[in-house]
């Protein structure tokens, strides 16, 4: 049995925040889980995928976050406890159903986990999803540790059923990707079979219905406010004439800072875990009589603005500070020492930071940017496309491993906004520049939100080439399944939808399927597609080598070596292809046999035919 399913209470485990969230949901009797994977949320769905064969919890990787949200909404509407997980920007995709499901409400508890990627470790922006609480009027819970996350998820399900509203469970990367000691609780009995009770006057969001439902939502909001004001997850620790209001991981930094500064008896801390609706009355009581109050929160001044409004309404004069030049930034994540220093300076407490060692005179360290792996088929495809379409062509690039080709020498990304944007933005660029524009998009991203852009391109007769990089998995986030792939090697019975069928079904006439490791054919295909006036799609099919290794489908091929007698040091291999298996020994280009996977592409790039497979016995 997977340890996450252990039924006994009391065991202690070291759990990643995301696994603690999953365990909390399991303890709460969750029976239905949907998601679209995205860092830093992906381990939540991945553990449900792993345990799916040994439980009756329904799980799916949905095609995108909107779909995941709506599939989940249907389950929750049928009375089933439902968890939906996504990264912060995923909620933008799911914002449409979020806003109106708030009107409809839910029957079974529904918890929406959104993982904000503060500091953009793996994201296109660092938006603060707490504002979705304000926008939708839905409750928000925010944990400060993995251990708390587990218990709080359980409560979030209860809260959701009490209010008949979905609950947003907002985390940040430091919670999702930190591990802590978590004590397992007992498992609630799962209810897996639901019943949908027809009631169109409450469940069909047409204007006449929604006018009524909006009023009901605001009534629920008022009840949620009362609950937030008295929630055990909004608590005060320590005491003193000064105050701090904080949330999430900032609470950990704050408590450690106060201990380090010996200020636990001078500063009272109000930790908010039920942060929306903002517990106005609780905060007003906390502010009353305080000399000054500091708000410690990452990203936007959500609590600060709310606290200032609450203070004004109560006629209080307590100075409240948070975001400013001197104090906290709206950018990036905090650190323990930074929070310590700001607390000390705000309350006028003497503090001497530990001085890091002098490093300015240490030698410069070469960058170590993430790169496409040795033998990655994306590199091969992008290399061929750029070789034919040239440097002047504009290349909107989508979100996936191929985004790593942003760096030279491939430099294959000129414009990238969000999931699916490559195809649609290429339409606008092509129309205004009058040139065929080339979009790069992966298989999972194509199903996520590339299909609608492609329909637009065909319908409006745009002049673009879409290069669909089909590596048979959702590689960047950890090899999750997607509709385009064969799931049989993973032992799962899912219907495969071939990207080619979708592309043809959307009306694309100029469709090519290629194997990118055949450079000659690939480049001839790109040439033909670039000359075609209209929408062309090249589907580049080659399995991700890392995924192939995982599923035991990694072919054994001879690795390659540079024939030093033939090599004339053109260095096209390292200057244009730049596979990380290459290295220099003196002036000689060499291939690391531990990294080479024998894809044979460099052999085709070399103008001297100097790169050849290592023969047996060599």
């Amino acid at each position, binding site marked *: 049995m997977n340890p996450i399913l252990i039924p006994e209470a009391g065991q202690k485990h070291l759990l990643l925040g995301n696994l603690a969230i999953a365990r909390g949901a399991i303890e709460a009797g969750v029976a239905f889980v949907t998601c679209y994977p995205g860092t830093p949320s992906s381990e939540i769905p991945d553990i449900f995928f792993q345990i799916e064969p040994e439980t009756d919890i329904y799980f799916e990787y949905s095609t995108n976050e909107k779909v995941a949200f709506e599939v989940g909404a249907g389950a929750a509407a049928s009375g089933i406890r439902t968890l939906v997980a996504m990264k912060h920007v995923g909620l933008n995709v799911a914002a449409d159903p979020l806003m109106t499901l708030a009107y409809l409400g839910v029957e079974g508890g529904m918890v929406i986990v959104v993982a904000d990627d503060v500091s953009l470790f793996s994201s296109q922006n660092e938006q603060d999803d707490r504002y979705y609480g304000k926008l939708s009027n839905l409750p928000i819970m925010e944990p400060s540790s993995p251990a708390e996350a587990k218990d709080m998820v359980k409560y979030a399900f209860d809260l959701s059923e009490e209010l008949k509203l979905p609950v947003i469970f907002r985390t940040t990367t430091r919670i999702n990707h930190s591990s802590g000691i978590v004590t397992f609780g007992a498992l609630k009995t799962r209810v897996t079979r639901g019943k949908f009770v027809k009631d169109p006057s409450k469940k069909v969001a047409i204007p006449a219905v929604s006018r009524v439902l909006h009023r009901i939502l605001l009534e629920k909001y008022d009840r949620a406010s009362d609950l937030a004001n008295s929630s055990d997850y909004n608590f005060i620790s320590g005491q003193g004439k000064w105050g701090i209001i904080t949330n999430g991981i900032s609470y950990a930094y704050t408590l450690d800072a106060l201990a380090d500064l010996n200020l636990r008896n001078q500063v009272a801390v109000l930790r908010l875990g039920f942060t929306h609706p903002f517990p106005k009355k609780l905060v007003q009581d906390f502010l009353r009589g305080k000399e000054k109050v500091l708000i410690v929160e990452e990203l936007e001044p959500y609590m600060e603005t709310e606290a200032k409004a609450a203070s004004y309404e109560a006629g209080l004069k307590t100075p409240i500070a948070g975001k400013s030049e001197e104090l906290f930034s709206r950018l990036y994540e905090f650190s323990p020492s930074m929070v310590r220093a700001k607390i000390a300076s705000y309350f006028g407490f003497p503090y001497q930071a530990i001085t890091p060692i002098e*490093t300015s005179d*240490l030698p410069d360290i070469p960058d170590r940017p993430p790169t496409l792996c040795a033998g990655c088929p994306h590199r091969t495809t992008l290399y061929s496309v750029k070789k034919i379409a040239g440097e002047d062509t504009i290349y909107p690039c989508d979100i996936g491993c191929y985004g790593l080709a942003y760096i030279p020498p491939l430099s294959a990304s000129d414009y990238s906004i969000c999931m699916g944007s490559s195809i649609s933005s290429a339409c606008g660029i092509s129309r205004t520049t009058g040139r065929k524009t080339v979009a790069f998009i992966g298989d999972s991203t194509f199903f996520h939100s590339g299909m609608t852009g492609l329909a637009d391109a065909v319908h409006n007769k745009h002049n673009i080439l879409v290069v669909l990089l089909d590596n048979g998995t959702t590689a960047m986030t950890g090899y999750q399944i997607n509709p385009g792939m064969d799931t049989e090697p993973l032992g799962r019975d899912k219907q495969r939808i071939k990207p080619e069928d979708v592309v043809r079904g959307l009306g694309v006439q100029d469709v090519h399927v290629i194997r990118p490791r055949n450079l000659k054919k690939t480049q001839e295909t790109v040439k033909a597609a670039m000359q075609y006036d209209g929408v062309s799609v090249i589907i580049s099919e080659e399995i991700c080598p890392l995924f192939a290794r995982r599923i035991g489908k990694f072919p054994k091929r001879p690795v390659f070596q540079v024939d030093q007698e033939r090599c004339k040091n053109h260095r096209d291999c390292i200057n244009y292809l730049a596979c990380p298996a290459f290295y220099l020994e003196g002036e000689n280009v060499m291939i690391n046999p531990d990294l080479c996977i024998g894809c044979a592409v460099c052999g085709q790039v070399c103008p001297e035919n100097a790169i050849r497979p290592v023969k047996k016995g060599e």
Partner: protein
Amino acid sequence: MLATGLIGEAALIAGVNVNVSEIHGMAQRGGVVESAVTMGDIMSPIVSDGEADILLSFEPSETLRSGAKCSKLTTVITNSHPLHPFTVAIGKGVYPDIEAAFEVMRGRVKKLFAINANALAHEAGSVLSMNMVMLGAMAKHAELPITPNHLKQAIKENTKASFLDINLKAFDLGYNT
């Protein structure tokens, strides 16, 4: 499993409070991977500049890159075997003179201890056990609230049977440095 995960498991075995922080996803794509462990009466899972008690580094140039985490109170345990970034491998970047840089750094921290962990891992039976060598060296040369036996127990409980002997041997080779 990451070395920090094993330290965390060892702390759990020892009954010491522990927080582990990881950055996921980029390791297999050749990027820099930094993890943090905090133990004892502490909630923060990350370590600020200058505040590391121990810097455990698996690659010598990365030791220098993480120099700002150290103060004069820091014990540095580092692998001396370089793993060149691709830019260096193809002659478009310069790999620093590690020996000289370590000499400078050694004078600024409490202790800097460098070993060729790749060679010892190879001796243990697989270069993949390099992180076990480093854990063994840390258990020997750094002050920890957990014992070498806690770490070995964590290795035993979290290693596939086919790798266990190699991992334990690698740990011992590191410990005997």
